[in-house]
């Protein structure tokens, strides 16, 4: 229990640090941030517009007041309004976040369902044909950038073979089959590198577990090979896999931005990219904060799962 509380406290401190970094970014850039936001390609901004933006962003007030207002807003869940259309940032995020989450979940599920058994099998038959083929494929999957995979999937399956839709989105309630069909390709693109990561880590950690003394003890007890494998090898190999999964969530969350863009999936990336192009700072900040918060939350969940799997961490 004490461990649990301490872990949550760490998470909160990190969340605060993240919000501080985001707030400070606006103030550490050289020059007037409002002027920066309004200038394009070296053309100086209209001074009246700059002044208006300064007021809008609250840059006229003392920095400490600004920070308190910002922090208060974050805590209340009020992330301000868009500079483009005055639309509340929180509202936009609330609409988009579930779709992004769905994509991440589907991708992770595919990655684990593929990577875990494949990694275990490859470790048990190390150096065999399967191991060599899949290890090579994993190296290739890790090397192809996610947007390349996405684009090539569209080129092959949608443009050339015409077996899958190129992208888009239909609400689940409206047409569940269509919804899942449209989810498939982006989820595969998301799972691309993650499945390779899960495969590699599972393979390594099963190999490690196999050499452990307690596996010898399990065999010395006369347990069946299946039971030794599931209860003593795979069960113990899961914890490192989980750690690595947590470490790769950052890349994964960044990858969703690209994947959503490639497949026209209307998650968080659409307003994010639009906002970056339009230099709509409050919208960008809101989305970056949300996704970073999500990143921290996922890592917290991973840690809790880790503790559930490994009793030694609970004692520490």
């Amino acid at each position, binding site marked *: 229990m004490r461990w649990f509380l301490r872990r949550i406290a760490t998470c909160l401190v990190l969340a605060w640090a993240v919000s501080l970094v985001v707030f400070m970014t606006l103030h550490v850039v050289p020059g007037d941030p409002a002027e920066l936001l309004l200038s394009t390609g070296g053309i100086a901004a209209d001074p009246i517009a700059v002044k208006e933006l300064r007021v809008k962003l609250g840059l006229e007030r003392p920095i400490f007041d600004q920070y308190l207002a910002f922090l208060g807003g974050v805590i209340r869940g009020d992330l301000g309004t868009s500079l483009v259309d005055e639309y509340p940032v929180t509202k936009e995020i609330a609409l988009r976040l579930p779709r992004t989450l769905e994509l991440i979940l589907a991708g992770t599920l595919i990655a684990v369902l593929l990577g875990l058994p494949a990694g275990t099998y490859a470790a048990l038959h190390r150096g065999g044909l399967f191991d060599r083929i899949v290890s090579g494929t994993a190296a290739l999957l890790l090397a192809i950038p996610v947007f390349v995979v996405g684009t090539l999937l569209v080129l092959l399956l949608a443009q050339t073979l015409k077996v899958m839709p190129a992208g888009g989105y239909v609400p689940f309630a409206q047409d569940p089959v269509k919804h899942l069909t449209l989810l498939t390709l982006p989820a595969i693109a998301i799972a691309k590198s993650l499945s390779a990561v899960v495969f590699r880590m599972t393979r390594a950690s099963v190999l490690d577990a196999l050499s452990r003394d307690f596996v010898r003890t399990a065999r010395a*007890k006369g347990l069946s090979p299946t039971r030794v494998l599931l209860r003593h090898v795979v069960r113990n190999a899961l914890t490192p896999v989980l750690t690595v999964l947590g470490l790769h969530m950052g890349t994964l969350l960044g990858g969703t931005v690209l994947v959503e863009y490639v497949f026209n999936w209307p998650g968080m990336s659409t307003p994010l990219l639009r906002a970056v192009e339009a230099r709509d700072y409050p919208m960008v900040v809101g989305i970056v904060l949300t996704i970073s918060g999500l990143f921290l939350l996922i890592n917290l969940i991973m840690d809790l799962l880790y503790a559930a799997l490994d*009793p030694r961490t609970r004692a520490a």
Partner: protein
Amino acid sequence: MTRLWIPGAFVAAIILVALLAPLLDLPNPIRQDVARRLSGPIPGSPLGRDEFGRDVLSRLIWGARTSLGVAFASALIAGTIGTLIGLIGGWFRGLGELLTVRLVDVILCFPPILLALLVVTLLGPGAATLILVLSVLYVPGFARVAYAEVLSARSNDYVEAVRALGASTGRILLRTVLPNIAGPVLVQFSLAVAAAVVVESGLSFLGLGVVPPAPSWGLMIRGARATMEQAPLMLLWPCVALTLTILTMNLLCDALRDAVDPRTPAQRPRRRLVDRLVPGLLPPPAVEPERVLDLRGLTVEIETPLGRIRPVDDVSLTVRAGETVAIVGESGSGKSLTATSVIGLLPPAARPVSGSAWFGDRDLLRLPEPVLRQLRGGAIAMIFQDPMSSLNPVHRVGDQVAEAIRAHRQTSAANAQAQALDLFRRVGIADPERRLRAFPHELSGGMRQRVMIAMAIANRPALLIADEPTTALDVTVQAQILDLLAELKRETGTALVFITHSLAVVAEIADRVTVMYAGQVVEEGEVAGVFANPLHPYTRALLAAVHEADAAPVGIPGVVPQPHAFPAGCRFAPRCAHALAACAASLPALEEAGEERRVRCIRWAELSGAREAAA
């Protein structure tokens, strides 16, 4: 080495082409020619023209220049700043550490692309923004590596020495620590370059990285996506270039990492008892009923990079019902391998290649695995040396004991738990109800070994093999465990094979003793007889060390030879005070030296006669 050179050469070639781009006489990568828009290969443009009629090959090569330029610049900046931060944090610790290493760690709380987008919003897209963002992103990686290396380096003797000589901190950091962390930092550098290429291309693909019309692979993919129906190849080229670059960089990173932190891959052996495939090739010997285990001529081989070795060579051993036989020897004598081969738990690289192990009328070395499995933990049980690593850390100890019961008997989970509770009482675990639910890390070393013993006796084995069961324990706990084993043996009549390197323990627990040296039996006999009149010089040396507890045998210089370097003659001869030229000439046989007494020494009668004469 090929793992390092092949991707290394590839990466070098890519870098070289990018560097030489201005000298290659390529068409201008940004000059548009709308008339030849999306044309296939034409003279002067082997890969065709893009959607604005620009030469694709030229854009690919100049794009490499952009990508690699941004990646190397940012990795260099991040490497310099990050290493410096890590050095400072690692050297000063305390507040310095908090303000440096811990502070930059916050960057790791952001998904990389999102932090980049935040900065792009403020500064606008462009190569300069990219370099700034990517540098920031990879600072924590370098800081962590440098920090960890400094921590381990500062405790090293040479750093301590330079410090004691009064060198200034900056000087020590630069002159002694920095060269030492070069390897890991280099690996980190290659990782950062590869990662930077990925992020740069991703941002350019989104239209938020390199600003058009400058060539970049990400931008090329973005542009070709719009026209992929008419010109799919235009999409393929930058995809292939990007993937190939990242793939070779990743392979180079892996190879570099392995070069900095080498681990030898294990070999896969294939050699087993030939006659396992042809049962009945050898006639079974007349079984002597009172013998629980009859090991005859066991030889174990291991394939190693240095060749095939025989860490166990022609070992014979008999154990009668209710008897305790000790196997004694220094580490490397082959005693553990002898024991584990009996229950078929040799490490994967080792194989028994000849001999037999009769357990009743069954040869354990030739039993099919499913049959052997029923014996393991049932009729033959084993206790291992280190109870901490031998218990599974993630399961409750009660469950692990119950599991052993249910592997051999049909019984309910509740019943198995109840039996486990009984076993815990029998092995003297205090507060057994609570301990059943404990995890291994919550128990003391002695308690854990009691759990292991409970597990081993759970199915009333006829033969119990204990492999140095007290070595990992405190001296006082050792005595308790020995008492427990002796008591259990009295109660159940189990035969016990007790492996140890300590003759003091042998005197306490065993009826007969087998002394092993360098994979061979050198002497065996009744404990009383061997202790009173050791015949082999090695046994005598071991006995002389008994009073020194677990110290190395006195009066024997040197160590047990490695299996690939066993002497041709008597294996103990190089360390023996009584060795003659004849000892090194040929391997002595294991001679009968009286009732139940055997010794492998050509001079045993002579030496023993001389001692009697002296006495």
